[in-house]
């Protein structure tokens, strides 16, 4: 846009030109021009059409140049740019028109497969590697996709992070969409669903949401464990659930643990969740991890030797982390021009080890951890010292330290002005706790939550 300085300068120029030429010419050619920039001896002038520019060039280049030169004091080149600059109308400083009525309530729609993002088109059954750890889940998912609503309803899949729950669920969506594009499919994360409910309650318009969710053929909700403790949302889901099942629509759910183990989930809901088929997806075994690597490598256009895949597969049992390692190996080998072999792979992956760093603001981290543990961020910074709160606070300290490498003093300041020794203690405490298996899995979940935030 035009800055004020240029606009004042241009007004002066126009004022002089106006006196030299006929009024008609001025109004037709100069009225809607503007000075876009004046630098390095070039004045860029916007005029609304190429035809106007042609006339300005042909007939008034010298007039403009002369006037501009006089004011700048040096030899200026005039450059015309075809661009419409809205002229602020002088007297009637009308407030900008309000948004056109049709576009006032642009509803937030959940993402629709194929049409809209949200479901990755490459997450299909064909791109899924199957082995004994996820075979049952795979078979039930394909069965459901083949005949929605009539085989297992609901299909509930659970398992730790990175075992392919989301992949399977989106594969169902993609498969159903591919075969029956007219089916109404909603794939939504538990957070998305929660937001919809909150939004609807806030706007006092739950009927619209109800209508939308209750008139579909396939509802897929990812990570339902996050509904824990959200009563109103659970109630909404409960009713939606009943109506959809009655209408013969298919429901697919996922969680990190079986329905009965989700704390703070209403009994009636967890019993409904387990009313269909509940399948467990285990962490991928070694063979599956190797197979996943080979598939992913092919996607990246790299022919990965099988023994290298095995080598990488030994390093982690999280499939998401696998892909990370693979991408890093590929990138490093490409940039350094080394071939990926069993000899180089160790070195490649150990260099620059550590987490793939992503830039987080401390507040993002705090917010995510708080929502994971379902506590208020203000409590985190507050003085209260209940055992549960203290633990969450210490986890935050640990993550801030490890992910962002902040100093103890900085972390202390972020967490409501705590002493750096408190922070040091907290971090050491968590490091100790990490030896415990169930706790380290919890940390893994927090980190994956952050990574996907």
């Amino acid at each position, binding site marked *: 846009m035009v800055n004020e300085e240029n606009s004042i300068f241009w007004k002066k120029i126009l004022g002089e030109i106006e006196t030299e030429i006929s*009024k*008609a*010419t001025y*109004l*037709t*050619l100069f009225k809607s021009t503007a000075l876009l920039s004046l630098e390095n001896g070039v004045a860029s002038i916007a005029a*609304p*059409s*190429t*035809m*106007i520019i*042609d*006339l300005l060039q*042909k*007939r008034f280049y010298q007039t403009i140049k002369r006037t501009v030169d006089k004011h700048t004091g040096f030899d200026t080149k005039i450059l015309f740019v*075809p*661009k*419409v600059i*809205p002229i602020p109308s002088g007297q009637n400083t009308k407030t900008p*028109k309000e*948004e*056109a*009525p*049709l*576009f006032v309530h*642009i*509803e937030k*729609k959940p993402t629709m497969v*194929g*049409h809209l993002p949200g479901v990755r088109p490459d997450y299909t059954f064909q791109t899924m590697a199957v082995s004994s750890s996820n075979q049952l889940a795979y078979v039930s998912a394909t069965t459901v996709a083949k005949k929605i609503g009539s085989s297992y309803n609901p299909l509930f899949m659970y398992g730790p992070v990175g075992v392919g729950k989301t992949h399977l669920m989106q594969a169902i969506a993609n498969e159903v969409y591919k075969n029956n594009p007219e089916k*109404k499919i909603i794939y939504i994360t538990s957070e998305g669903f929660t937001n919809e409910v909150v939004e609807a309650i806030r706007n006092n318009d739950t009927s*619209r949401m109800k*209508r*939308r969710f209750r*008139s579909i053929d396939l509802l897929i909700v990812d990570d339902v464990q996050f509904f824990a403790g959200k009563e109103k949302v659970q109630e909404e889901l409960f009713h939606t659930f009943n109506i959809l099942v009655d209408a013969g629509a298919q429901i697919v759910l996922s969680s990190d643990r079986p329905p009965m183990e989700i704390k703070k989930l209403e009994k009636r809901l967890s019993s409904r969740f387990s009313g269909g088929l509940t399948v467990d997806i285990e962490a991928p075994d070694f063979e599956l991890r190797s197979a996943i690597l080979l598939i992913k490598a092919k996607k990246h256009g790299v022919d990965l030797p099988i023994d290298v895949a095995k080598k990488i597969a030994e390093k982690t049992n999280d499939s998401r982390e696998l892909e990370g390692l693979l991408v890093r190996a590929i990138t490093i080998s490409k940039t350094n021009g080394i071939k990926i072999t069993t000899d180089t792979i160790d070195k490649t992956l150990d260099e620059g080890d550590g987490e793939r760093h992503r830039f987080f603001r401390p507040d993002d981290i705090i917010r995510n951890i708080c929502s994971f543990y379902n506590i208020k961020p203000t409590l985190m910074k507050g003085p209260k010292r209940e055992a549960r709160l203290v633990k969450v606070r210490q986890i935050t300290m640990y993550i801030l330290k490890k992910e962002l490498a902040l100093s103890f003093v900085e972390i202390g300041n972020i967490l409501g002005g705590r002493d750096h020794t408190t922070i040091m203690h907290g971090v050491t405490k968590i490091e100790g706790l990490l030896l415990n298996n169930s706790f380290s899995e919890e940390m893994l979940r927090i980190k994956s939550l952050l990574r996907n935030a």
Partner: protein
Amino acid sequence: MKASFLLQNLSRRISFVNHAVSAKSQLPILLNFLIEAKKGRLIISATDLEIGIVAEVPAKIEEEGSVTIPAKAITELISVAPIEKITLQTKPEGLFLTGERVKTTFQTMPTDEFPKLYGDKGSELIRLKRNTIDKEFSRVVFAASQDAERPALSGVLIKEGESMSKEGFSLVATDGYRLSLQREALGGTKKKKTTDASMIVPSRVIRELILMNKEASEGGDIGVYVPQETNQVIFSQNDVTIVGRLIEAEFPNFEKIIPQDYSTKTIFEKEALQRAVKASYVFARQTANIVKLSIMKDKIVVSANAPSFGSSVMEVDAKTTGEENEIAFSVRYLLDFFSNIDGEEVSFEMTGPLNPGVFKIVGDDTYLHLIMPIRIQQEA
């Protein structure tokens, strides 16, 4: 310059070129046509600096050259002059237009004052099939805004098909109260790979495009060009070219406002409802131009009410599924819609008296028209 040609060849073109001449222009040169004679053709151009039209007619050129000539005068003259062979010749005294039974002289203006309409067209971006243009653009362009304060809404968005599986282009126009969307349009094929295959073309240019296409003599697809480093868009068909300026603004996210479902759907004969709405207009125009549609099981009741004047109630046969419903619209929007679409049966879908109603042509799911209802007081 000296050129001879058949008057009827020129008269066919010149009235169309005249559309680009603005009667209100304050620059005298813009009230003129530029006529150039070269290589066996007479090229006539006109512009109001916003749009430009160029047409060519075959002619026998004895001496190449160019001249400007008052647009209004020559257009009127040609429309009444006897049809015969005409010679145009520039002499020091002016421009002479002579035929066997006609002899006229015009004062001319220097041709170098006439702006150049376009430079290098660049390569063809899109090729539009001529046969569907009228129908598809007509269904859309009427919904564009006349209000220059919302630039994005004063044009028609031409956008590459929104999903990978669909062919062709989407055409969209809206004035913020109604919206027309034509999918899979133009049978167009993109010639050049560009990342951004969407543009907003002023509705005036689209209207001229429709006219150009209607008048085009024999088959000819339309080439679309967007020259580098300009904000121009050029439509070329056979011997006629329209130059317009693209609207540089962000088109509102129309896909979000298209309802995905409905609670009431009714199918009716377009003409029947159109007639009923027209009849209601007699009363509606006395007040706020509102007509109410009550959608019942097997009919639509169209009613209008003008206090201190009278009221009307008309019934139209319809097949309704879903709940019965009521909705009120501006008569003008309904009539605009009916008079700009083809098709005999139309369906109407709605979810409530305050949500936009959706009209579709039965048997053609590539088109839809959305109208924002008017909130009315419930009758006691």
